[in-house]
């Protein structure tokens, strides 16, 4: 890969901030079910440890942890102030398996991956270590599949024509709800 190609790719890293924010929107508005090419059906939830930031502006940021952070007025306020989701702890489910992990938009690295699979625990896998590594790799495939799903939409005309408007409506609705919550407090 040439230096120009690398620079071009790295300048588009902001897409991962948009991806995490879009994932949050899809989870809240459409329930978080995705049917991914080559992966199958998965369920996603944005769980905890939200870190929001504005692109190219490290000064403006918000961190929310515990107590259903995605529904808190501060989260709505941060989105409406133009911040996007930079980091979050997510839950992904596929079949009997459920993963809990951190996802960082800067790198799409997975952190603190924990997996629960009641079915596998009952069956006692032959090689628990190989099974754990395979499960981590499967999660990587799912996250990459979700990112590709986002990119297909993001690089389509439908993004500007439809999805951006829906995202803005979502932020407005969250903000209105936040005002109601703050007003009744």
């Amino acid at each position: 890969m040439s230096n120009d190609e690398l620079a071009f790719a790295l300048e588009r890293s902001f897409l991962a901030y948009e991806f995490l924010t879009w994932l949050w929107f899809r989870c809240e508005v459409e329930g978080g079910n995705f049917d991914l090419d080559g992966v199958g059906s998965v369920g996603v939830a944005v769980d905890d440890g939200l870190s929001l930031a504005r692109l190219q502006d490290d000064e403006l940021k918000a961190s929310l942890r515990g107590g259903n952070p995605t529904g808190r007025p501060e989260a709505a306020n941060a989105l409406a102030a133009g911040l996007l989701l930079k980091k979050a702890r997510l839950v992904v489910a596929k079949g009997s398996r459920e993963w809990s992990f951190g996802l960082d938009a800067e790198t799409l690295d997975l952190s603190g991956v924990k997996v629960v699979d009641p079915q596998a625990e009952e069956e006692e896998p032959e090689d628990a270590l190989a099974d754990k590594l395979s499960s981590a790799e499967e999660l990587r495939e799912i996250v990459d599949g979700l990112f590709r799903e986002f990119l297909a939409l993001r690089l389509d005309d439908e993004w500007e024509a439809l999805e951006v408007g829906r995202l803005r409506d979502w932020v407005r609705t969250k903000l209105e709800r936040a005002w109601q919550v703050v007003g009744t407090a």
Partner: protein
Amino acid sequence: MLVGKGSLTFRSFDVSGKNATPTKERILERLETFSFAGIDTIEEGSTYGWVAPDHLFDGDFDVAKVFRGRYALFAFRVDTRRVPGPLLQAHTAIAWRAALEAEGLERLSARQKREIKQDVKRQLLAETPPAQRAYGVFWNLRGRRVFLQNTSKSVVEAFRSLFERSFELELTPRLPGLQAAAFARAAERLDPLKNARPLDLATRSAPVAVA
């Protein structure tokens, strides 16, 4: 076991190059050749090398230990020896004073100061134990994917360099911009990617700035 311990944090890479799925024999041979060989007691800095997956001092690369299911398992060991700045400054100040008293001088030349400081640093380096770390690596040979159980920039860069030299293969990290470029190329959507501008969801009705 250094690989797969606890909850996992990792960076993923795609492996490419001529013979991107090497034989078991070649992998063991290359791990042995680039195995961790200890750290110099004189120089300040870091030394890198491969160790077998069981523990920090495991230099025994054999088929049963390294190959599990579809993975090759090993670890990237990094030893760093560094004299803390304040410690060096304090010991140097003591040595300068001792030299002044011993020589009956009022002041030392810049050269004398530099030489004394270098001697002190050499002595402290020999007395300072290195920080020893090892990070698990699992390599899906058929899938041509490598996973490093660390995400810090310096460790990732050193790992990538050693891996590429050891196996004469190329590692491409699965970073979002690179993934987006690869996707756009395959889907013939490079123009939309080129023209993509960051999303702005800011509304004029946001009540207060978030800090």
